[in-house]
């Protein structure tokens, strides 16, 4: 059972896609001006992530290696369009909030990254749990960032109260404030993650060994050679 719980929990903190792997930065910065839009984006991406992980894991033995990336993208694009149609039909206001970033889930590197690094090599159960864990981590990161930016940038939380809890510091609702909050959160997650995982010593040099993806990538043992240095 150990590997099942590990497949689920690693996405939440240790390999948090947004704050540790720094994937999916575009939607992270773009939609986190409010709690609701961050949370909605997280849920939509989680749905696509879990479904595409399951399908890709099921098909992993019949998809020819040479066309695996286009095959993955077709599956991911299919699920993204399904989410978009459903949201347009039943949650039109959320659809409006997310705008162009909803169809852009197709090119969210978290989803293709998990398909390539995990789902295409593991069983269906593990792939589903991995997708769910990564999705929960992504949603949590986006909701937290949305809460901070909405409170500081607009003075409200989930649109409450009408007149604001505090004076708005508009810069937090702008891209610059997004990068600022993102940077601080990455720092905090790294701190927390290192503290919880005593044996983990971050390498000071840039290399595969210190990468949070080392375990799944399979190239981690090849050592701390600096790529492109």
């Amino acid at each position, binding site marked *: 059972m150990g590997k099942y719980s590990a497949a689920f929990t690693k996405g939440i903190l240790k390999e948090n896609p947004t704050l540790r792997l720094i994937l999916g930065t575009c939607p992270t910065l773009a939609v986190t001006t409010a709690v609701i839009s961050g949370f909605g984006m997280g849920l939509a991406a989680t749905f696509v992530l879990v479904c595409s992980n399951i399908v890709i894991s099921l*098909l992993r033995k019949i998809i020819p290696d040479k*066309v695996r990336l286009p095959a993955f993208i077709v599956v991911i694009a299919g699920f993204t369009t399904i989410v978009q149609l459903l949201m347009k039909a039943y949650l039109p206001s959320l659809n409006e909030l997310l705008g162009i970033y909803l169809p852009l889930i197709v090119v969210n590197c978290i989803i293709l990254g998990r398909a390539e690094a995990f789902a295409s090599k593991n069983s269906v159960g593990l792939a589903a749990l991995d997708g769910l864990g990564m999705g929960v981590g992504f949603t949590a990161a986006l909701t937290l960032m949305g809460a901070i930016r909405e409170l500081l940038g607009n003075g409200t939380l989930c649109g409450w109260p009408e007149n604001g809890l505090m004076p708005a510091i*508009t810069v937090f609702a702008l891209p610059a404030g997004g990068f600022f909050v993102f940077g601080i959160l990455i720092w905090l997650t790294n701190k927390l993650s290192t503290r919880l995982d005593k044996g983990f010593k971050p390498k000071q040099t840039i290399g595969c060994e210190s990468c949070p993806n080392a375990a799944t990538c399979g190239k981690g043992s090849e050592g701390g050679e600096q790529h492109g240095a």
Partner: protein
Amino acid sequence: MHNAKEILRAALMLTLICAVVVAALAGVNALTKDVIADAEAAAVRENCENVLPAAKEAGATFEENMLDDSGKAVSYYEATANGDTVGYVFLATVTGKSSGLKIMTGVDATGAVTGVKIVDNSETAGYPAKVEKGGLFERLLGVTADHVDGVDAVSQATKTSNGIKAGVKEALRYFEEVTQNG
């Protein structure tokens, strides 16, 4: 020959996957098409009723029409109840602080503004909220074509305010066009 077989297999698999995905999407589309159309129609109606409250009270129906603005086709909504025109709703895309500021204006049969709403914008975050808090929309109520320029903008959001006023002016110009030709 071995290579050709492999390429063919890859192409066939990819085609098969695409076909299955397309079939699934067609299914979802068939399920949601009507719901989406209804939701969009309801959203248009709600927006129109917001800027033209009299239409809601009179139980008016909105009809989409086209007008000719010096060669450019512009669509607008006409609200009618029991054969009488209650008012019109016009959309105008103008430039505030940024381009793409889309303003919806309700105008009653006498040419006075009954409501203004921002439908879409790319303004710097915070400006549309400032305009709303500054009471510009209330100040625009009842204004006619000659008096839009005299309405005070909201300070600290002057460009957005002026954009909105330009949108309202555009709507009142459309109103002239419609009532003179119709």
